[in-house]
Structures are given as C-alpha cells and as structure tokens.
C-alpha cells in the first residue's frame, strides 16, 4: 500500500506526457485489488445495468421471438405510455398506489416509535426482553406465511376474528373479510404493522438509549410526570432520527408494496382497491405477456421514484444527514 500511495503522489503522474504509461503501470501494480472489484462490477453491470438498457423496449413493440435482438423490434415512441394513461384502470391504480403507501406511512410509521416509547418505560428487564423477542419475530416470516395467517384468522370457517366478533355479539353471521373491498386496506395495513412494528422499533429504541440520563434525573427532581418526560425529553431527543426516516419515506411514495398485496388480494374481486402500479405491471407483463406495455409502466414509476428519492436525499442533506 505505501508503495502505491507514493506512486500516486509522485510528480511524474501529474505530467500529461507520461501519464498514460504510468497509469497502466499503476493499474498493473494493483491488479490484485482490481481483481477483487472486477467480479462485482461485472455482476452489477449484468443484473442491474442490462435491465436498465432493457427499458428501451418500452418504446417498442417487443415480442419474444426476436429474443436478444432487441433492435429488430419496431419503434412505437410513447404509444404504451399513452395507452396506460388512457387505460380505464389508470386512475384507480394511481389512487390505490398513493392511498396505500400514504396509509402505510401514516399508520406504519408512528407505530414502531410508540412501541419504542412504551418499551422504554418498562423497568422490568425480563419482561422487556420477552416482549422484544416476541414482537421482532414476525419480521422474519415470509409474506406467504403472514398472508396464510391472515387468511386463516379472517376466514369464515373457524376464523378467530369471526369467532371473536360473534362471541361479543358484534356480528350474527361470519364475514368473508378477504373478499370484501371495504376491508382490504385495513387488513393490508394491519398485516404490515403486525409484521414490521417490532423490528422497526429497534432503531428508535437505540436512539432513545443514547439520551443522556441526567436529563431525566433533572426532570424527576423537578417533579415532572413520566408522560411529561416523554413529551418534553424523549420525543424531542429522537426527533432527528424520526425526521430522517420521514424524509426517506417520501422517496418510497410509489412503493405501495408488492408481495403483500399480491398475496392478500389473491381474490380478483378486490382489484378495484388492491391494484397498484407494481402488481399491475406484474399482471399485464407476466400474466398477459404485454411486455412493452408493462415495461413502459415500470419505467414511468421508476422515473417518478428517482425524482422523489432525489428530493428526499436533498432534504436529508439539508437537515444535516445525507443518505450516503
């Protein structure tokens, strides 16, 4: 390493005439490190950049038989974009995408913060650890399992939710929750909160743990109640972390979810409320094989997402914390 650093700083490398030669020499000298990076660069090029190149098929009428000869497909300009904007589903897909991701944000974002605040009040360490262990667990389950649990609990045939509601007299007949549009958003959000609340609270718990205990001692002496301490010490102290996570959520506005919706809304009756951009792309692309149309919609979403992410990152930087 010292050798190479000396090379880099040597006056020779700054002279343009011999530059290319010494550049090659430097490159040869560090072939071993370049070799470590090379496979990663190639893999990312193939599996991340080649699909990016593939988005040009969104401006063509792509068909599978031309295969790898992408350029043999006819150009059609913005035809597929226009078709999407004019599609009867367009409005509801956009609405569902935004509503679902906003609901996930409004309910799913504060939930782990509240959990962290509650956990922080627990003085009984064993109790705290047990609660943490239990609430982190659902995060590690696949959406297939979570959707399976949801289906079982909400079923009309021995579904616990229906049993409970019948027992307390709220309903007379079991309700088939997963086939009724009005319940879908609540079910989707609840399943998401159930899965992620514990795991997402970890970072906020850590933020709370780093607060100076002297602040609480002083508040105790002044006779401030626990509730007041949370409001006046804990919340303001973790605000920077909260704000960063809020800003990052802006960048995810069009990511309403995919697996969760696909699995929980397997009943097609729910489409008017469950269809979001990603599930639509999946259905028309891989289900109906309208590749170019689906690529165009995916690209539409990706471009807006990049815009949102850039805004989010800019805001994060302004607030003193950048993403990278």
């Amino acid at each position, binding site marked *: 390493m010292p050798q190479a650093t000396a090379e880099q700083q040597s006056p020779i490398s700054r002279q343009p005439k011999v530059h290319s030669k010494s550049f090659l020499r*430097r*490159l040869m000298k560090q072939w071993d490190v370049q070799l470590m990076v090379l496979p990663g660069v190639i893999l990312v090029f193939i599996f991340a950049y080649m699909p990016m190149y593939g988005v040009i098929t969104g401006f063509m009428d792509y068909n599978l038989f031309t295969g790898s000869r992408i350029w043999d497909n006819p150009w059609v300009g913005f035809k597929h974009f226009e078709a999407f904007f004019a599609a009867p589903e367009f409005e509801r897909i956009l609405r569902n995408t935004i509503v679902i991701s906003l609901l996930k944000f409004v309910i799913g974002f504060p939930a782990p913060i509240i959990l962290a605040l*509650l956990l922080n009040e627990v003085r009984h360490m064993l109790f705290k650890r047990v609660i943490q262990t239990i609430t982190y667990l659902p995060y*590690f389950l696949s959406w297939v399992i979570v959707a*399976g649990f949801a289906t079982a609990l909400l079923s009309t045939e021995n579904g616990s939710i229906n049993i409970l509601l019948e027992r307390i007299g709220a309903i007379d007949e079991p309700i088939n929750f997963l086939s009724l549009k009005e319940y879908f958003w609540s079910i989707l959000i609840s399943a998401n909160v159930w899965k992620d609340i514990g795991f997402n609270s970890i970072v906020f718990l850590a933020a709370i743990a780093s607060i100076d205990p002297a602040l609480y001692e002083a508040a105790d002496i002044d006779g401030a109640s*626990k*509730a007041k301490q949370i409001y006046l010490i804990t919340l303001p102290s973790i605000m920077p972390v909260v704000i960063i996570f809020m800003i990052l959520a802006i960048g995810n506005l069009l990511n309403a979810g995919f697996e969760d919706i696909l699995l929980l809304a397997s009943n097609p009756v729910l489409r008017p409320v469950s269809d979001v951009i990603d599930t639509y*792309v999946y259905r028309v692309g891989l289900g109906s094989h309208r590749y170019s149309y689906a690529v165009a919609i995916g690209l539409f979403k990706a471009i807006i997402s990049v815009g949102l992410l850039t805004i989010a990152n800019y805001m994060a930087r302004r607030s003193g914390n950048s993403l990278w």
Partner: protein
Amino acid sequence: MLKRISFGDKVMLIVVYALLSLLAFTALYPFWNAVAVSFNVGVDTAKGGVTFWPREFTLENYKIILQDERLLNGFLVSIGRTVIGTATSIFMTALLAFGMTRSYLIGRSYYMVFFIFTLYFGGGLIPTYLLIRSLGMMDSFLVFIIPSLISVWNMIIFRTFFKGLPVGLEESANIDGCSNWGIFFRIILPLSGPVIATLSLLTAVGHWNDWFLPSIYITSDTLLPIQTILRQTLNANIVSGSSTVLDSASVALLDQARQITSKSLTMAMMIVVTLPIILVYPFVQKYFVKGVLVGSLKE
C-alpha cells in the same frame, strides 16, 4: 434510591404493561392458533370454534405433510439455495467491499457511483425477467444464486465496518509482505465476525422466504422451494375452496382419510415451513439488533 411513584405515573405504567402484553399476544396468537388447528382433526375444525387448543387431537395432518415427496423436495431446494446463496453472496460482497476500501484503487469513486446508482434506479421486473430468459437461466438453480451474488446495500455496510477496523494490524501485515488477498483472508475476515453473522442472517432469511422469483423463473416442480409450493397451496385453497397441490399419493391418502381438510393440512404445512426460522431465531437475535444499527448508521 427509592423513588416515590406518583398516582399518574402508576396509571401510566399499568397502561404501558397492558398495551405491551396485548401487542405480544397479537404477535403470538396467529402461530398459536395455527398450531392448534394443525393438531386438530380437519372435519372437526370445519365446525368452528377451535382457537387456543385442539379439540380433537390428531397427528394425521403432520403425517401427511411429512410424507409428501413434493414438500420434502421443496425443503431440500430451500435449504440448498439458502446455504449456497448466502455463502456465495456474503463472500463476493465482502470481497468487493474490501477492494472498495483500498484508497489507492484506481477508479474507486467511479465504481462507487456505478454501484450507488443502482439503489436509485432499476430496470424493473419485466426487463429483468427478459434478461434472465435471454441468459438461459430460466428453470435453473443458478437463478437463485447468481443474480443475487452482489448486494450493494451489504457492500456499503461491509465497507463501513472494514473502514472502522484498526489500521495498525493491516500495516504490520503489509510490512511482513502480506498480499491484499492475505490481508483479506487472514486479517479482515476473522475480525468481521459480527457483521458477517448479521448480514448472513438477513441474507439467509431473504433466501428462505423468497417465493416470488421461483414463481416466475422456475417451471419444473423439482426446483420449486418450499415457500412457493406453500403459496400455490394457499392460492388453490382460496380459488377453488378445497383442492390442494399435493402429489397424487397424498391426494389418495386424503380421500381415504376423509377426516382431513385442506385447511388443516395447510396449517400444518405453514407450521413446518415456519419452524426452522423459529428454531434459529433465539440464537441469532443479538446479531440482528446489532446489524440494524450498523445498517442505519449509513441511512
């Protein structure tokens, strides 16, 4: 020092404990109920009312599930892809991250932009699908491994961790004439236990839980991992109400037994699929808590 607790604080503590207990109950109940149903006779469950405990205990559901060749095969595929996929991905990503920590690496900042750009923008589902097709990876085990060899997120976390390691060790190794590969294998990797454990855990969970990629890339039954099979079974239950996606031997058994319903079978299947995670989970809990914090440093 004993603190006197005010009445208001006492009430709040009670509320806190009550809410947390309720939350823990909500988190656990779906498992509990699934276990109860999976040990209950199917036709009895259909009458309703099975919540906490099985009413007519039976092991029949598990017997059928564990004899199903298709499920057994799915398990093997899942284990294979999780072990191989995690080991190769962690190694390749760590190697890349180590290379990226070398300050004299020519083109380092260009490489970094090259990698980070992929976090912002991607080709999306369909172009990736068409690429996998044209690479001839459809219906092949390789599709589980190769596309996910490099995780840019994990690379960033590894890099941050490697940068935080003491420089002195490396310098002395350098003086002793240790090559970069030697430094990586003999110094960096042995010192990176916690971060390797954390990222391996999260990568492994991702592999184990993935049902979607196989559902679009895999067509032969023998290559389907357990989660995808489970998804097909659940879907068949919802769509047709009764049929299961079990092999013919099991269906024959099913007809014979009559006592068994697809619902009770599905529940047993879900428990069997979840069990590995629940068994490993307590041992690795401390790692992922650390891992989340390492990850969020960069966020």
